[in-house]
């Protein structure tokens, strides 16, 4: 837990050890995005959030592994090595910010900064039993972040409790002239204003997602939490989205994300920076570099992205996906007309076993798995909080509010934390980690 009072004069995060996902540029320190093509890339500048954290007194202790270039949800697809879930080493931590989630869950750091393009902070937080935050689109500068899909990319982060999450946003948020998508909206004093009183607050239970969850134990824990929130004074209503929209989330996401990724990574060619393979001419250098630099999985995604951007396919695929994204967001926004926040199960299962999980999910999957991409479509602020355990593995809830209502999000989250009692919930065998394995 971050002791803010002890650090008042030295900066809000003075002495706090922080891990950074390896797609966050750090001046003079290798930044690979877990891709071979960036194996020797050492940025000559800091990302804006790195500067902000440094000014707040944070100590950077490591760069965290991730799925290559942010593409994936297992953290198996990393040139720098796969990540395992601290609660069960045979299971994935989720991705793409799985390294960050595992470090916080294992108690190694109280704060880790990741990125979230399609639930890449909030799903790993659910699998690892920690708090995962993705604020409003534009709330945190993305300058210096190696991009994935620009219209969906957000900076997010992991902590072990809500107050730390609120404090971290005070440091990270704010306008940055280097990032034209960053907002001029004033940054609140979220941690000081935390208020868990639920009087006059309406919480919408995302019934469409709940109905898709099959695990009875998880459903019982979720219902128990909802009852406790009602006892604390919240008005509870059910909110729903048309199923046909929910089923479109995955294909629309994949169409947009792959297309944007293809364009964003065209500069990784071995000429300007990163690793280089030799060739007879410039063309051959680029082809050899990109063939050996990207994994087979990433090259496949580029091909699919490129396909939807072809002139003959643009209207039928890419533009249609963009239009449907708008329709989905409109329907999603309607849900917030009758409530202050929407609560749902974060992930419908515990973390999958490593050998059973796959990044190859281009096809249609259950929308209970993909529903947190709604907040990437809409840019709404969203947080994942521990709910309890099923089969000794963490399970979690997700809470979303309207744009720039982060204070309300943290307030309701604080009430949820009081209900679950899961504050500073880290893997309990950390002594074994430090004493037996490291010495």
């Amino acid at each position, binding site marked *: 837990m971050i002791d803010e009072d002890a650090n008042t004069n030295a900066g809000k995060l003075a002495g706090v050890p922080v891990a950074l996902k390896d797609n966050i540029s750090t001046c003079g320190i290798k930044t690979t995005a877990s891709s071979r093509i960036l194996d020797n890339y050492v940025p000559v500048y800091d990302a804006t959030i790195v500067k902000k954290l440094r000014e707040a007194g944070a100590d950077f202790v490591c760069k965290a592994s991730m799925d290559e270039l942010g593409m994936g949800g297992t953290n198996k697809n990393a040139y720098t090595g796969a990540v395992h879930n601290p609660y069960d080493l045979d299971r994935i931590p989720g991705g793409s910010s799985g390294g960050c989630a595992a470090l916080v869950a294992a108690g190694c750091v109280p704060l880790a900064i990741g990125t979230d393009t399609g639930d890449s902070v909030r799903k790993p937080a659910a699998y690892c039993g920690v708090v995962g935050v993705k604020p409003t689109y534009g709330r945190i500068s993305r300058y210096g972040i190696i991009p994935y899909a620009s219209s969906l990319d957000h900076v997010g982060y992991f902590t072990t409790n809500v107050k730390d999450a609120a404090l971290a946003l005070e440091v990270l948020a704010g306008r940055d002239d280097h990032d034209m998508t960053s907002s001029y909206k004033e940054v609140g004093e979220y941690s000081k204003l935390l208020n868990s009183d639920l009087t006059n607050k309406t919480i919408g239970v995302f019934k469409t997602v709940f109905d898709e969850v099959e695990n009875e134990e998880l459903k019982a824990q979720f219902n128990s939490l909802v009852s406790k929130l009602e006892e604390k004074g919240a008005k509870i209503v059910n909110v729903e989205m048309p199923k046909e929209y929910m089923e479109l989330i995955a294909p629309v996401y994949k169409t947009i994300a792959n297309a944007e990724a293809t364009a964003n990574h065209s500069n990784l060619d071995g000429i300007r920076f990163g690793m280089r393979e030799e060739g007879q001419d410039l063309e051959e250098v680029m082809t050899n570099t990109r063939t050996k630099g990207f994994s087979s999985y990433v090259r496949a995604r580029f091909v699919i992205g*490129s396909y939807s951007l072809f002139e003959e396919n643009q209207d039928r695929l890419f533009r249609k996906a963009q239009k449907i994204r708008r329709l989905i967001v409109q329907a999603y926004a309607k849900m917030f007309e009758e409530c202050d926040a929407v609560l749902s199960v974060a992930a419908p299962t515990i973390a999958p076993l490593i050998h059973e999980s796959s990044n190859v999910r281009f096809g249609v999957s259950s929308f209970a798995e993909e529903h947190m991409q709604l907040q990437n479509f809409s840019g709404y602020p969203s947080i994942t909080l521990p709910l309890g355990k099923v089969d000794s593995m963490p399970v979690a809830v997700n809470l979303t509010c309207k744009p720039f209502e982060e204070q309300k999000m943290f307030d309701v989250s604080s009430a949820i934390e009081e209900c679950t009692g899961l504050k500073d919930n880290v893997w309990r065998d950390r002594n074994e980690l430090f004493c037996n394995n490291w010495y």
Partner: protein
Amino acid sequence: MEKFSTEYFHKLANDLKFDLSDEEIEELKKILLPSRSKYPFLKKWTPKG
């Protein structure tokens, strides 16, 4: 060139300045082709505007 043939995917990859092996293309076909037929919005959705 026939659409979704191996040659077609080689061309797509080469346009993006990398190569795909024949095995990688077969894997890509396994992913892309079934998912295309499953994507409902490809066929039924005609949003205006």
